[in-house]
């Protein structure tokens, strides 16, 4: 009876949120992607708005994807059709051929992979190292080589990506013989400006088109030994897209050579410093007047809430229906018990973002891989608590059940599961709360939810945008807490609550 109720609730969820029936499976749809930093959002929005000029196309946006690995995989799997990439990133991270400078050769290698790029949009968003103006005057710093004057006294902060890229800190260090020693911290890129402004660090890595360079009083150190590769922005798409949408591609190529670093810095500053929305910046740039006013906050939160509930609810239902039988099976034999408990424990040790990335080759990006990842994450608490609850049953009660002549299945259903129900419910509750938190990462693979404003807000370093995701997520966890208090009144037999 109760399980029937769960099935009905599960399918309600499914219908309420439209299941997997995304519009991308209907008609002439073009999906534009972006990474999760300001410039990528803005350029993605410009591309999307240009495409929207053609009324026969439905334009979808999958913005805020978490990194080159994810977005390129999405392009390869045709989950997205086009996004803005940088030549340096293509050679370093995608082709893994650092130092490849020849454009024709680059184009050829991409075509071997079924991909193609446009000519540069006109600006080079390379990495650069920056220090505060006063700091540079004090220590006479003009070039990266000058940093060696500081010895290991400089406090340095780099983004996680820069710390690990082959063209990032490790080779930069070698190239210039830098001796920062242990004073190098890793932090999210959006936070390094705060850190240098507050005099918590002295040297940071920046992008040469950062909007903040306009206003923050920073000195960019000259790359005197020509270390950093060129990061010319280009449109990146698949050969299939060019073949199927030649007109759209022609139109997008009008963006070639239309930008320079100053313009891009300005567009970035509009978002980062002046709080303008990406659609507004894009349409101002394209000179088409103000776009439809940004979605009201309430509507935005409601849309994210639906996405988040879908992610948490559906994955939880699967965690329950798979986790409880696994927990039961684990109590039936020692071997199975070990295998199951170790397996579900191992799943939990995979960092959540890594798990999401592993699933992209199998399930692409978007809601499906996010659901699979959340389902896998939700398993352990359900499995472990079911197992625990069943193992802890007083052995005399199990004898009592066998002495009545109940069959194995009857004993599980009528005696063991009800007696273990408080533990099982505690497991499901833990799973749900973990799910609500972890689901915020799903935005990095384009599944939306409360993570979407959080990722955007992080890119913009804009607390109020982060709050739009973070506060409802916290509220949802609180609501879940009380909801489970209520559910326990229904699911846990009265005799056990006395």
């Amino acid at each position, binding site marked *: 009876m109760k399980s029937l109720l769960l099935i009905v609730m599960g399918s309600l969820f499914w219908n309420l949120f439209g299941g997997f029936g995304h519009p991308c499976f209907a008609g002439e749809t073009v999906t534009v992607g972006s990474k999760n930093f300001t410039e990528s959002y803005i350029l993605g929005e410009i591309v999307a708005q240009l495409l929207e000029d053609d009324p026969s196309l439905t334009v979808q946006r999958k913005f805020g994807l978490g990194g080159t690995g994810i977005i390129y995989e999405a392009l390869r799997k045709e989950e997205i059709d086009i996004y803005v990439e940088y030549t340096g990133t293509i050679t370093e991270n995608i082709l893994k051929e650092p130092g490849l400078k020849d454009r024709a050769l680059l184009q050829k290698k991409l075509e071997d992979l079924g991909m193609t790029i446009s000519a540069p949009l006109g600006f080079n968003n390379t990495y650069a190292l920056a220090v505060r103006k006063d700091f540079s005057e004090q220590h006479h710093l003009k070039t990266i080589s000058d940093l060696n004057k500081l010895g290991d006294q400089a406090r340095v902060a780099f983004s996680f990506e820069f710390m690990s890229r082959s063209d990032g800190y490790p080779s930069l260090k070698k190239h210039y013989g830098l001796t920062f020693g242990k004073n190098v911290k890793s932090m999210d890129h959006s936070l390094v400006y705060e850190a240098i402004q507050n005099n918590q660090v002295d040297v940071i890595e920046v992008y040469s088109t950062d909007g903040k360079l306009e206003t923050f009083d920073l000195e960019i150190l000259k790359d005197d030994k020509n270390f950093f590769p060129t990061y010319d922005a280009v449109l990146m798409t698949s050969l299939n897209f060019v073949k199927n949408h030649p007109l759209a591609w022609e139109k997008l190529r009008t963006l070639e050579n239309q930008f320079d670093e100053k313009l891009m810095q300005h567009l970035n500053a509009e978002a980062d410093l002046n709080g303008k929305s990406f659609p507004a910046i894009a349409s101002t740039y394209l000179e088409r007047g103000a776009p439809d006013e940004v979605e009201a906050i309430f509507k935005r939160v409601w849309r994210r809430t639906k996405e988040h509930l879908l992610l948490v609810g559906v994955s939880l239902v699967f965690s329950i229906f798979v986790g409880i039988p696994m927990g039961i099976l684990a109590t039936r034999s020692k071997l199975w018990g070990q295998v199951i408990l170790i397996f579900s424990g191992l799943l939990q040790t995979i960092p959540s973002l890594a798990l999401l990335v592993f699933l992209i080759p199998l399930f692409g990006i978007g809601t499906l891989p996010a659901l699979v990842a959340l389902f896998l994450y939700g398993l352990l608490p359900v499995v472990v608590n079911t197992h625990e609850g069943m193992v802890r049953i007083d052995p005399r009660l199990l*004898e009592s*059940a066998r*002495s009545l*002549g*109940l*069959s194995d299945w009857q004993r599980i259903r009528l005696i063991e599961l*009800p007696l273990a*129900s408080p533990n099982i419910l505690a497991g499901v509750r833990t799973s749900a709360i973990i799910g609500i938190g972890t689901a915020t990462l799903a935005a990095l693979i384009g599944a939306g939810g409360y993570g979407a404003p959080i990722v955007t807000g992080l890119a913009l370093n804009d607390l109020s945008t982060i709050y739009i995701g973070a506060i409802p997520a916290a509220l949802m966890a609180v609501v879940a807490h009380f909801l489970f208090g209520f559910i326990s009144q229904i699911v846990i037999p009265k*005799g*056990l609550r006395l």
Partner: protein
Amino acid sequence: MIRIDSVYKSFNQTVVLNDIQLSFAPKKTHILLGASGSGKSTLLKMIMGLISPDQGSIWLDQEKMTPSSQRLLAQKMGYVLQDGGLFPHLNARQNIALMAETLGWSSQQIQNRIDELIEVVSLDHLVLGKFPRQLSGGEKQRVAVMRAAFLNPNVILLDEPLGALDPLIRSSLQKELRSIFEKLQKLVIMVTHDIGEAAFFGHTVTLLYQGRVLQHGSFSELLHAPTHPYVTEFIQAQRTLHDLGDKI
């Protein structure tokens, strides 16, 4: 009729039951008596099919107890544990009728059987709606007896059924339990370590010592014609008020 045929059992090299050869007549009350570790509870669980013998066999009428026959044979026997063994998530009525419901009895049949048995164990109907945690020790045991007797089995097994009760309640429940057994007219096997209880209930008494049957007979046979010095030692070890003589 229950027959135990050359049964051996050991756990981790320790012999728990050694060449047990017994038979129990129908409609009588039989006592398995012994100190803790004597093997009496193991023997009772073995009769219920909860433990399998290493060697030998156990027969209920003409049917042999095996892992595959256990379920059906269990339905012909009732089992009462020390604290009743009632399921805490079910109320008294659900505990009592659980097996009948899974066997598909109609609610009228179930109600009739409850009415019959509640008379026998003299319980108030109000008790049926309560959960085990709300019942007194005596009430739990009566409910457990109702559950054990519900399918009208030929055999009722009890493992120290009064062991957890206060002395006063215990004494009054002993009398009631004996009259319940007389009304039910079943083959009853009851495990106890209490001489008084053995004398009070047992048509036959079986004294076990370190996994062996020392003597099997009526209580007065054990008292007056012991076959082994330990029999007398065991019976005399439990002093009564009489033994204290002039100290009171």
